[in-house]
């Protein structure tokens, strides 16, 4: 490329950046000065999750392992691939399995199911590693106590997201894993029909906590893992838990900033 070409191209780029449209989107000049770099973060709602400056030690990969960031990225991957899967999947027992099988053969983006499944496994893994790191650097200590609590809730939601998704392929692995998991609810003290104290809840002689009314029944919408359970898990998996998780992530990220950025020695 000759020098004049270069000048011309730069000229075009510069011209583009002077248009009303460009300036309406990016409200700062090219981020090569301190001021514009600060503005690049401040005037962008996504980048604005970050502060403008951070401690140098907090930048080091060997300190944070970027595990929280990776977890968040995997959550985004799950959202995108999950939406694509939703186009091809119907949460009814006589269709679900076939939908999944057809996906393999007919979907142009045939890898979406793999990405979604392995991404989900990976997210459970990275959220554990993230917690491990936060513990080992003592980052839950004041002033970050509350953000640790938010984190524990996020950990729980990540596991529940994964668990509810486990049922959706409606194959043997799915229903039996969920059967084993939800059998625990049967043994819940007082509100599970096989739990200690369940017989305490009586109306005259009629037990209130039975197979047809205990904690497991409410979770599954039936006495066993059937069509109501599939619908319930689908709604929880695709709508309810993600919405709660996104909300808590917003709190989590906001609090990182408000608590003074990534932790470091006092």
């Amino acid at each position, binding site marked *: 490329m000759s020098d004049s070409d270069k000048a011309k191209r730069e000229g075009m780029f510069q011209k583009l950046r002077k248009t009303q449209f460009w300036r309406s989107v990016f409200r700062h000049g090219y*981020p090569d000065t*301190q001021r514009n*770099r600060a503005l*690049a*973060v401040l005037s962008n709602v996504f*980048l604005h999750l*970050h502060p*403008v*400056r*951070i*401690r*140098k*030690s907090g*930048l080091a*990969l*060997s300190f944070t392992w*970027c595990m929280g960031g*990776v977890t968040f*990225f995997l959550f985004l991957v799950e959202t995108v691939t999950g939406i694509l899967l939703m186009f091809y999947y119907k949460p009814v027992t006589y269709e679900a*399995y076939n939908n999944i099988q057809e996906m*393999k053969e007919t979907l142009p983006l045939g890898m979406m199911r*793999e*990405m979604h*499944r392995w991404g989900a496994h*990976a997210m*459970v*893994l990275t959220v554990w*590693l993230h917690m*491990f*790191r936060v*513990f080992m*650097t*003592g*980052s*839950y*200590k004041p002033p970050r*106590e509350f953000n*640790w609590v938010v984190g*524990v809730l996020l*950990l729980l939601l990540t*596991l529940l997201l994964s668990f509810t998704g*486990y049922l959706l392929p409606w*194959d*043997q692995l*799915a*229903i039996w*894993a969920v*059967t*084993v*998991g939800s*059998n*625990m609810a049967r*043994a819940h*003290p007082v509100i599970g029909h*096989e739990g*200690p*104290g369940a*017989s305490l809840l009586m109306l005259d002689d009629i037990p209130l906590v039975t197979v047809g009314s205990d904690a497991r029944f409410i979770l599954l919408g039936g006495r066993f893992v059937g069509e109501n359970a599939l619908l319930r898990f689908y709604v929880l998996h695709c709508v309810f838990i993600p919405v709660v998780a996104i909300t808590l992530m917003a709190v989590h990220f906001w609090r990182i900033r408000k608590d003074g950025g990534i932790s*470091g*020695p006092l």
Partner: protein
Amino acid sequence: MNIFDDFIVPLSNFLTRPEILVPLAALSLALVLRFYRTVTKPKIAGGIGIAFVLLFVGSLSDAHFKEIILKADNLPIVLLIASLLFFLWLCLRRAAINDERLERDLPPIEAVHKRQTVLVWPDLVMSEFICLLAVSALLTVWSVGIPAPLEEPASAALTPNPSKAPWYFLGLQEMLVYYDPWLAGVVFPLTIVAGLMTIPYIDTNPRGNGYYTLKDRKFAISVFLFGFLIFWVLLIVIGTFLRGANWNFFGPFEVWDPHKAVPLMNINLSEIFWVKMMNTRLPENWLQREFLGILVVLAYFLIAPLLLAKTVLKEQFQKLDFVRFSIVIMLLLLMLALPIKMLGRWMFNLKYIVYIPEFFFNI
């Protein structure tokens, strides 16, 4: 004659029995925490790492081992083991360096550039972007390389054997061997979640905030690592790789034979007391029958805290106020309830300490 078949296979099948593996792992962790400054030296840790990899690759020559390890859905657990070992090393290595600096009155490495800050754009955004690309690449390779499994269509009539919960809950399923579902499936998980949330409020030690260290937080880190690595991750590993048909134990080189006969000889504390020691029949009344077990449980939660406060946990007792200390001790006792029952099972075939099936109340 073949060293692998005659020596390594039986030895590994023996060493991985839960009653050997769990104490062995706990002992190794204790040793690592005791000698962390030596063990984490790159040469030693690297040697251990290479030995692990060689053992792993060598074991892949066994057909059964290969089958369960390389099962598509088990890959995350292999990754879990590898990444935890690596990151444990990283934490302890950095802790060793920092602790040595602290002893020489130098600040931890994280504090060297204490006042120095960098701009988020471009420094942080760039490194986040690189992480993002790396993760995308890995996930793409994983997804192209390993198709997502799909088994036979769901059927309520055909129960697979073994039926396993998703891998991240297998620790709880493994606890079911020792405790009834109301404890292993409800009380323990709720305690784990609640216990994790209380950590910042019960750990009042102001040191060790924002840098890697072990010396400054020995108690907190040890409890966390035992809980996380032994009583959570190791149980998941056992549940995934070593539990086969009927949730029986199978060594890594053993085929999962659904007809494996395991003698059931577990007995309750009440039977040990009344039948074996007193040579009488079990009393009809449950309160009389189970009085010893009930006393043991009460003593565990009421008297053990007093003893611990005077001995092992003296330091904590002095530093914490009453409420915090009570919470710490209850969480600790609940956590220790698991290894205690495990030992009872392995040493005395103990089934239940308290057995009141009348109320589904078994401990």
